[in-house]
């Protein structure tokens, strides 16, 4: 069952790499949060107590509802277009995604052979690595601040899944602390995107150096860059 969830997680991440709509990307993040929460509960199904239930449910709520809601809110309030703008095209992103998946499977396979404790499900572990790598890839290759936040969430999902695969039982307080971190992180990013949007009229991170030009008298450059 956990293996099937890992496959679904990998597919949502590949979908994220290939989708051109921010709204669909957010839906994929919702799916990932939900799947991870379920995977956590399934993984710890032998010893379910108040702590594991709290982590599982709050993970589903936070990553599957609150954070996506926050992103959707920012998306609607900012004047950003609803399309993802990548530096690397969607087809190429997907292809690189497959390579990343292969790479992480290779590493996970070798690690699970080397490790003496065979408790790590190799499928989940390879997908966890893939989520981290593809999250980083999303952060690097997408222009908009909001899509970079989505990449950050995917990366964090990967970290969560890695913890799921390696540690048999996470300390409750650590897990909750990490979740609080993410919440604050994404909350701040949401506020930042909102402010950036007000200051710049867009959230394209590669056009942030415009601010320098506004001090200059060469206002034409700004117009050129906006047209570019």
């Amino acid at each position, binding site marked *: 069952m956990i*293996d099937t969830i890992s496959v679904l997680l*990998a597919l949502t991440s590949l979908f994220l790499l*290939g989708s051109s709509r921010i709204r669909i990307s957010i839906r994929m993040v919702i799916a990932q949060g939900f799947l991870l929460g379920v995977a956590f509960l399934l993984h710890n199904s032998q010893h379910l107590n108040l702590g594991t239930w709290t982590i599982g449910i709050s993970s589903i709520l936070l990553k599957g509802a609150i954070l996506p809601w926050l992103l959707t809110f920012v998306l609607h309030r900012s004047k950003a277009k609803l399309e993802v703008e990548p530096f690397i095209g969607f087809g190429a992103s*997907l292809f690189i995604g497959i390579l990343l998946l292969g790479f992480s499977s290779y590493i996970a396979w070798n690690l699970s052979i080397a490790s003496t404790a065979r408790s790590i499900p190799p*499928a989940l572990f*390879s997908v966890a690595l893939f989520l981290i790598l593809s999250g980083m890839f999303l952060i690097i290759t997408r222009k908009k601040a909001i899509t970079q936040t989505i990449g950050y969430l995917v990366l964090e999902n990967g970290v969560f899944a890695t913890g799921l695969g390696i540690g048999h039982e996470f300390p409750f307080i650590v897990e909750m602390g990490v979740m609080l971190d993410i919440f604050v992180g994404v909350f701040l990013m949401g506020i930042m995107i909102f402010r950036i949007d007000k200051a710049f009229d867009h959230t394209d991170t590669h056009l942030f150096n415009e601010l320098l030009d506004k001090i200059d008298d060469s206002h034409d450059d700004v117009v050129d860059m906006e047209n570019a």
Partner: protein
Amino acid sequence: MKPFDAITLFSALLFSPLLFGIINRIKAMFAGRNGSPLLQTYFDIFKLFRKNMIYGNSTTLVFQLAPAGILAALIVALLLIPWGPIEAPISFSGDFILLAYLLGLSRFLTVIAALDTGSSFEGMGASREVTFAALGEPTFMLGALLLAIHTGESSLSRIFGSIQLTELHPTGTTITLLVAAWMILLLTENSRIPVDDPNTHLELTMIHEVMVLDTGGPLLGIVTYASAIKIWIFSALISNLVFPHLFEKPAMQTVGVAVGIIFVAVVVGIIESIMGRIRLRNIPKLLVGATALVATGLLMTLAG
């Protein structure tokens, strides 16, 4: 040739044009029309065969011979497809590679026939066909590789014979991924709706239809029949993945394959009814996505 081989081969040859009839009926049902008769493709083919041969002035022998070659390649490909528990008439180790190349050969002949007309319009269609085929090929080959690794067999008949659909993972998961990917491949290879619209003659998106614009009369009849056989081959591959393994008795499995082929045609009809054609520049994304599905399945098979 064993008696069952003859029965499966001839039922494939006989019933393949029926698939177009089923697809069109489903589309008509969704649109609230009565639709064309189920046997319309047969009528079309007979009508075309009663016509005279007409060739364009600029065409050569290549154009005249290509349809026969296309049909021949596809019928040989049909010989490689097993029918549930009944092994394929021709079956040997690594025959799926031959299948891929026979499909490639038929595509190559379609393309050079289109180029032979000297029409830039047909050249455009040929270019698109080859581009999308090149992107679709990894889906087929990786899928066959996945099945070969998964089952430990190397011929199509044995591969399909040894799939066990009893467990959810890894078999169920990988087979689901493979079915989804090969369904996209079927729609691409047969120029069905999300990729190409077989009903329109709109130059912006035409792929297959544009390549046979100059083909007429009996030659067009052969091409139509060949495309019916092609969709039968892909439907049979997908059907063989799932349907025989849902039953215990060989007789039921044999019926299951036939039901599966019809089911695939119905699904194609539903997809064509509820989806629009996607933009031409997004098609490579779809095909890479299909490859991604198979690659995920392959990696899961290797890891698990």
